[in-house]
């Protein structure tokens, strides 16, 4: 236990564990805590050894051994008595014209898992105009009850009016959990609704689960540029809200025999001034390079940066419905655009399948892809860092390995009937 010059036992930070959340700074009555190099620092000469900073630390990063009086948890003062009224897992079903965004169904699939653990129901919230068909689809994908709010005011999405509508619906239905797809629309809407409801919202969760003891929603998300993961709780406010990026959760099956109830709800909103959309430009989806959303990435590294071989990589990517990405040296050499770069200074990706061709696996690259589901390394060097972390590795000259891989894949897939992309 460290002591200061006055002989007082003082608190000390375990720098490696500190998340830099500042929570302790607010607790310190003598302003002895400051941030140095993004980590909390406790000035020993100022510290009076009261220990108030210890219980608020989410990561147990404060060393302090003096026995503490039980401090009541620092939680918002909003009454927690009404929480038990909030039940069920709701999913906001994002309507695009008269079809729903795929991410909404992925969330319905996840909501079913969560609802099973809580022994409760899954609700679908469908808002818009002429979207009744989506409500039926919501049943097929797994909703027990679908609340359908149709109004001419909801013809086009605007954050304010949709925010009011979804807030009204949430206040009437009182779900314990509400999930929203983290599309550009969903991220706006979820934040507006959480602000109206004065509840907690956790963005871009990659993992959702239920705490078996407390029955709370455990929301896990990458933070700090994807370098660390944090599990977040919303203990005393309802609904517990979370947004999830597309393609993070698995698509559930559509079952036409499923039965569910569709309940129509009237929107209480009034006509108000909305922004005017002058023009909408839709780009050809094939012209958009978005390596963060592609389920399969064929990643080219320094060991395979001969542009003459690119037709071969494209063929492989094409067979797997994948996208070409790369490591930093290829961008620096001007071979591929920055939009395709994976890694610390590029994009953080988490595809279902990552195939690295001639990627050595520098730390800066690995942090940008370590959440990939499965990794295949093709590398001439058996001792490359990428080979050490890959689920499967093929050691050999890529000029020979890749054509053989293409041939093997073709032989296997030729026997199957392709459904073709929808």
């Amino acid at each position, binding site marked *: 236990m460290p002591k200061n010059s006055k002989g007082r036992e003082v608190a000390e930070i375990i720098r490696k564990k500190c998340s830099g959340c500042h929570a*302790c700074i607010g607790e310190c009555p003598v302003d002895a805590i400051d941030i140095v190099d993004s980590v909390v620092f406790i000035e020993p000469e100022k510290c009076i050894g009261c220990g108030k900073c210890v219980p608020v630390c989410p990561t147990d990063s404060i060393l302090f051994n003096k026995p503490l009086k039980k401090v009541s948890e620092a939680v918002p003062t909003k009454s927690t008595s009404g929480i038990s009224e909030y039940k069920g897992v709701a999913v906001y079903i994002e309507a695009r014209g008269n079809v729903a965004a795929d991410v909404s169904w992925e969330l319905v699939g996840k909501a079913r898992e969560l609802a099973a653990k809580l022994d409760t129901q899954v609700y679908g919230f469908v808002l818009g105009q002429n979207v009744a068909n989506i409500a039926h689809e919501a049943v097929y994908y797994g909703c027990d009850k679908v609340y359908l709010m149709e109004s001419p005011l909801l013809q086009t999405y605007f954050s304010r009016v949709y925010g009011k509508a979804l807030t009204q619906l949430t206040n009437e239905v009182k779900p314990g959990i509400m999930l929203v797809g983290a599309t550009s629309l969903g991220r706006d809407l979820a934040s507006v609704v959480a602000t109206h409801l004065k*509840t*907690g919202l956790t963005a871009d969760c990659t993992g959702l689960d239920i705490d078996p003891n407390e029955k709370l929603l455990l929301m896990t998300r990458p*933070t700090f540029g994807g370098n660390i993961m944090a*599990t977040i709780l919303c203990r005393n406010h309802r609904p517990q809200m979370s947004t999830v990026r597309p393609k993070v959760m698995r698509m559930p099956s559509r079952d036409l025999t499923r039965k569910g109830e569709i309940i129509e709800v009237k929107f209480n909103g009034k006509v108000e001034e909305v922004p005017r959309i002058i023009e909408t430009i839709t780009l050809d989806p094939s012209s958009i390079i978005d390596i963060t959303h592609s389920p399969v990435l064929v990643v080219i590294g320094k060991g395979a940066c001969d542009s003459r071989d690119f037709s071969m990589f494209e063929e492989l990517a094409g067979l797997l419905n994948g996208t070409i990405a790369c490591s930093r040296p290829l961008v620096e050499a001007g071979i591929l655009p920055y939009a395709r770069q994976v890694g*610390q200074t590029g994009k953080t990706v988490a595809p279902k399948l990552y195939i690295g061709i001639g990627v050595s696996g520098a730390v800066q690259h690995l942090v940008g892809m370590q959440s990939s589901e499965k990794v295949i390394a093709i590398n001439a060097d058996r001792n490359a860092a990428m080979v050490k972390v890959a689920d499967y590795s*093929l050691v050999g000259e890529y000029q020979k390995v890749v054509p053989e891989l293409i041939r093997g894949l073709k032989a296997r897939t030729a026997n199957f009937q392709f459904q073709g992309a929808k």
Partner: protein
Amino acid sequence: MHIVCCIKQVPDTTQVKIDPVTNTLIRAGVASITNPYDLVGVEAAIKLKEKYGGKVSVITMGIPAAKVQLRECLSLGATQAVLISDRFLAGADTLATSLTLSSAILKLHADDPVQIVICGKQAIDGDTAQVGPGIATRLGFTQLTYVSEIISLDKEKGLITVRREIEGGSQVVEAKLPVLLTVELELGAPRYASLPGLVRAIREKIETWTAKEIETPPEIVGLKGSPTSVRTIFAPPPRKGGPVFESSSGLEKAVDSLLNELFEKESLLVQEIIKVDGKVEHAKEQ
């Protein structure tokens, strides 16, 4: 025209290194910077000020050291800077942060009506993109998120036209002031500070407001006013290497063994990826 920019001091996440032994973040020695998205917003505000007149106020909630970031904005040409700093404000989540910042904006508004608030699309440390929409909701301003271009501003009619990035394309939208914009990097890189700008930035007094001054009771801001709390943080589990197939012992055999393993052990994944109709188990019979 009074424009308010909200900025955040963030650790430079591009400098972060990973401890190869513990697979945890080495944070010591990482410099603090102004969130790059926020700086793009400040640049846009200064351009608007140069074209249409008025003033640009820059605010941040943070520790006293965040004055460095405010001075950077002053050096680019912001009119005034305010630090909102109080131990009651520490540990805030996005709900408490949007309350604090909107309260500060209201205080500025009382002095000189605010027409435009600009925030970065998101901060590079938290990546939530929630604070901007939260502030707009509390202020009752129209929110225009993911703005990549400010096309025009009509001071007389009080109209602003911007381009927003949306799924699969973009949208040109006209809205009535007051508005809150959250901005993309495409809006334009910040300028370099001029020498007079730097000198001014050092001399300018930065006001500091406490929770009391922005009239926010301690129980609704900071850690106490935050519905969400962090339960644990952890490094993503380190990946363990799997089987290695050497082509030196026969290329065809190596590729074949890899594909066999893949189609057997990862059949679900393979099915999903190549959208195969029928069961993957058939592969073995061929």
